[in-house]
């Protein structure tokens, strides 16, 4: 499955400024592994040893993966994944 991952501004330093990247994977976990291969350092920003970091939210389409199957959420071709990190500032 090829999906589009929307990269939030704080993480674009890892993608060379790319706002969206195409990644292949059957699950969210596989897509994050794919992200890590293409953009080293991304996995550590998204996951810790317990799973998705507490201050990061991952959406498949409009759905938070915590309310789906978490990292094992199955993906369909063409879906969009959004990463929403907690931010403070202004």
């Amino acid at each position, binding site marked *: 499955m090829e999906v589009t991952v929307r990269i939030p*501004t*704080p993480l674009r330093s890892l993608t060379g400024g790319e706002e969206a990247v195409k990644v292949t994977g059957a699950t969210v976990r596989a897509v994050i592994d794919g992200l890590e291969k293409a953009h080293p350092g991304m996995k550590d920003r998204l996951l810790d040893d317990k799973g998705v970091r507490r201050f990061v939210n991952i959406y498949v389409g409009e759905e938070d993966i915590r309310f789906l199957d978490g990292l094992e959420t199955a993906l369909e071709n063409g879906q969009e994944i959004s990463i929403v990190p907690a*931010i403070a500032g*202004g």
Partner: protein
Amino acid sequence: MNTFRTDPQRLAQKSALVVGVGGLGCPAALALVRAGVGRVVLCDDDRVEAANLHRQILFDERDVGRDKLDAAFDTLRARGGTARGLERVHGRLLPDTARALVQGVDVVLEGSDNFATKFLAADACHLEQRAVVHGAAIRWHGTAWLVPPGGAPCYRCLFEDVPMGAQAGCSEAGVMGPVVGVVGALMADLALRWLTGDTSAVGSIWSYDGKRDRLRASAVPARPACPLCGQRQIAELIESAYVSGICTT
């Protein structure tokens, strides 16, 4: 995105607390005052710095070094505010003052630059059954969302707890003036909608991407395990629970 549907008579009876008179709080406070909110309380403890001026639109060069609240008060009065309708709380939102401060208003707008204050505002508003609008911006990205009184989903449904470590400073990350202007205005929009009885924004977080000029709403479901609105494990504000660095990347 909606347009303002303000009701002057209704708004004149309403009140708002603006926590942090910075890049988000400045445009939000101005919009609330100009919309006719009867009582706007400003809370901050900083002084105006030259580095603030590109985004903190209530201040200009003559204000550098002044107390932010005094400078904001003067500007807001000159732009339609009244001495009676503007109040200043010199200091930070703290665990021992937060509940009393939020209890005295109809809605809280929280545009703080640190996570501790964000979680504190969320908890205090939940415990005092007050609506809160959370706003944040860094670089070209910003978010705003409305949490209803005692409501779900709440800030802890999405971000769980105060992050420890691994936070970079705002000065390194940077904050774009136009982005905080948009997000601050959006915060005011959400607050005005709430004050005029429009609940349609509850349950979504708005994200603004200033590089692509894209504004999108994402649904935020209430989380049953949330310690604030789900399990209701947070019954008081304990100072040690609100310690963190500033900003994150």
